[in-house]
């Protein structure tokens, strides 16, 4: 087993140095420190705490929060299978099983020689090219048995990742339909030049006229957010681009960052111009760390072109620069106040609001948090004017929307539509047939049944951050909902009682039904938990967690009912399984050594 090597102090010193010994960089420091040994041994945490003058308990608190940080030994090869419902539909369980068997290990455990550990992780944003996995943080898509065999061999030979076939790491954009944004071919700086020419107030007025609303989910008017931050006291102001994209089934921000990074960074700079901000962060989910080198390169180029840094485009007083912070496997960090906590190097726990980030955000300063797509869209507005932008889409939903389409269809990928497009039209375009249901907006979104396919994508009808997962007639909507409940339970930050305990209880009930021990009474309990989560949760994660269950119970109730074994009551646990240990200890297997969990003849 592992013998504890002495803490590599000089390497840690280098990392600390690189991050200026800033406690706000704690998460970044931990991510880098983990690369040394593949995990974070206790002495490493102690050393870092001392160097940063932080209580050790706080460092341990942060290290224990993020699922990509390990405070117990993990394999030199850490394999994480993406476990979105779309991965499940593409057979990820079987592939994970196969890899485990080939490498002689159990999921969630470390191999005895410390070589490899295999586990599942939440949606990695490769739903259009799954099943997917992360190996030491690097994404690999389009898994199949052949690839799994090869990977098993590479791991057995302990071949460093750099020597793995490069096509493994190739990720497609899969852009299938372009509209205003994806057709935009902008010379870097063009949007900025036009906004600067309008002056800060003029540019904000243009934004106002555009009616642009946030693409991250809540649909808040972007100009209102910007002007609140602009008018709030406190300096220097901060622009954050939310690239945490953790909502299962969403991957459009990945494509924007991969191919349209200039639009995103230019949008951030446009926001800075309007707000008077000088500091910018891109919060990039850990799953997308493969994009980091190319994004850093774009930033460097933009600095060289005078599009970032001091006196942007020679405009006196327009100073703004952008740093990239990585996440480390925590969906809740997409929530803007949790994201800010994470940026400050803390556990990603959502704050009490008010105060809102626009007045009191990063380090207490006015902070704008916007989605990747929202920011990219501002380039269109700067170039074409607010009115032109507002003229497209619907009354309350100006412009276009990127959809991340996955699941049962011929052509999964990215589709850009003007707002107002019907579900049926989208289904037709992507080649879906025999569609039973569509989950729009990801796990937190809404599950639409066939009779709703005439509804439209728009804030006033079916709002969405962009996920569009398709389930055909062969799929079991109970299993879809159950996988989302697993997701929320895994991602609950644990801060508030209803979500911390409620998601775990809900998962227990869904698993109970799945295991064939469900009763009508459980459906009543599920209803009750759904309501409590919705009402009492501290943030949007907890209040959205019951959505998939509420929707499917309403629209696909038979999927639940056919699993029930009693119309009344069934034990909360598997009685016969609870005797298994005693059977083993006594070597008994007579009828008296068993219990029927379902009591025959009761209902």
């Amino acid at each position, binding site marked *: 087993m592992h013998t504890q090597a002495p803490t590599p102090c000089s390497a840690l010193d280098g990392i600390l140095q690189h991050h200026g010994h800033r406690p706000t960089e704690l998460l970044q420091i931990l991510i880098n420190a983990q690369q040394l040994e593949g995990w974070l041994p206790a002495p490493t945490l102690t050393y870092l705490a001392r160097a940063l003058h932080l209580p050790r308990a706080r460092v341990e608190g942060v290290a224990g929060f993020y699922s990509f940080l390990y405070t117990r030994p993990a394999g030199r090869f850490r394999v994480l299978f993406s476990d979105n419902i779309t991965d499940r539909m593409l057979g990820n369980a079987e592939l994970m099983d196969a890899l485990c068997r080939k490498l002689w290990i159990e999921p969630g455990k470390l191999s005895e020689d410390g070589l490899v550990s295999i586990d599942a992780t939440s949606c990695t944003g490769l739903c259009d090219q799954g099943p997917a996995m992360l190996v030491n943080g690097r994404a690999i898509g389009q898994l199949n048995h052949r690839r799994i065999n090869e990977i098993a061999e590479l791991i057995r030979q302990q071949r460093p990742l750099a020597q793995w076939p490069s096509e493994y790491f190739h990720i497609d954009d899969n852009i299938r339909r372009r509209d205003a944004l994806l057709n935009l071919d902008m010379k870097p700086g063009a949007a900025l030049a036009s906004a600067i020419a309008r002056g800060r107030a003029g540019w904000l007025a243009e934004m106002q006229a555009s009616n642009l609303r946030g693409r991250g989910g809540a649909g808040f008017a972007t100009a209102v957010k910007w002007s609140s931050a602009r008018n709030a006291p406190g300096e220097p102001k901060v622009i954050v681009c939310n690239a945490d994209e953790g909502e299962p089934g969403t991957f459009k921000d990945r494509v924007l960052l991969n191919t349209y990074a200039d639009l995103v960074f230019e949008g951030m700079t446009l926001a800075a111009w309007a707000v008077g901000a000088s500091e910018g962060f891109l919060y990039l989910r850990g799953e997308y760390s493969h994009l980091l080198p190319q994004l850093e390169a774009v930033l460097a180029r933009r600095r060289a072109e005078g599009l970032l840094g001091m006196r942007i485009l020679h405009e006196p007083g327009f100073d703004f620069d952008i740093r990239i912070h990585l996440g480390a496997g925590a969906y809740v960090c997409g929530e803007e106040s949790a994201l800010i906590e994470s940026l400050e190097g803390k556990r990603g726990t959502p704050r*009490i609001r008010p105060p809102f980030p626009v007045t009191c955000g990063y380090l207490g300063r006015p902070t704008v948090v916007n989605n990747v797509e929202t920011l990219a869209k501002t380039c269109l507005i700067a170039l074409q004017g607010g009115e032109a932008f507002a003229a497209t889409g619907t009354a309350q939903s100006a412009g276009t929307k990127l959809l991340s389409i996955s699941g049962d269809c011929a052509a999964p990928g990215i589709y850009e539509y003007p707002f107002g497009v019907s579900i049926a039209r989208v289904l037709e375009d992507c080649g879906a047939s025999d569609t039973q249901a569509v989950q729009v907006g990801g796990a937190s979104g809404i599950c639409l049944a066939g009779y709703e396919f005439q509804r439209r994508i728009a804030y006033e009808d079916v709002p969405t951050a962009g996920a569009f997962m398709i389930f055909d007639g062969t799929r079991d909507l109970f299993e879809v909902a159950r996988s989302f409940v697993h997701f929320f339970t895994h991602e609950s930050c644990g801060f508030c009682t209803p979500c*911390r305990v409620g998601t775990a209880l809900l998962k227990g009930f869904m698993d109970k039904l799945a295991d064939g021990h469900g009763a009508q009474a459980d459906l009543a309990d599920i209803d009750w938990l759904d309501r409590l989560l919705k009402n*009492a949760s501290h943030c949007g994660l907890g209040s959205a967690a019951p959505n998939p269950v509420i929707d499917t119970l309403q629209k696909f109730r038979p999927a639940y009912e056919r699993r029930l074994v009693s119309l009344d009551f069934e034990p909360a646990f598997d009685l016969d399984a609870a005797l298994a240990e005693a059977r083993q200890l006594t070597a008994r297997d007579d009828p008296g050594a068993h219990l029927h969990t379902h009591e025959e003849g009761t209902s």
Partner: protein
Amino acid sequence: MSKQFLLDGQPVPFEDGQSILEAARKAGHYIPSLCWHKDFPAHGSCKLCIVKAAGRHVSACATPAKEGWEVESNTPEMNGERRALLQMLFVEGNHFCPSCEKSGSCELQALGYEYEMLTSRFRHFYPDRPVDASHPDVLLDFNRCIFCELCVRASRDVDGKSVFALTGRGINKHLVVNAESGRLADTDFSKDDLAAHICPVGVILHKGPGFAVPIGERTYDAASIRSQKLKEEES
């Protein structure tokens, strides 16, 4: 004229910035709490203080009162939700009151009585959580932690020691102490710290003769948590 809102139909005056809970208690109306403490900023985690303000569920401890609001608190609906939250706190830990030193003076238990919680209703998690008896004066029984972070806040903000912190997440969240060994004895914790006296439940317990206070004289034996908390407000 000061501003006011309506709590279950009764006018409650408030000053700008005051939370619904503070204003209500000042005016002699009880809204329950577990993670809230008058000497600290609101935490907003336990959700026992949940009320409906202008039709929307909010945490009374963390929501500034607003002129003219109609707030529902002592209603079957809100009390039912509170009871369910208590049940959640009971099943996620290991609460065996008969063998708990805090019994009779425990806020969680007293709220169970207040809201007539007769069963914890849900499936018990029976988590495996340790007891830390390393410190000469104080025992930590993590089985009963409700994550109010009062010890975390008191130690960090008042004692200046940061002895406690939370790690893990979701249902696996747990309390740790500020030592590589994980033992309280290896921290600079002292029985005189505020953090040693602030736990509302039976986690942070002082060693010494067990069950020293006789039944009948414990904090909530004679008077309900409702009347005790309102009395505190007057003093």
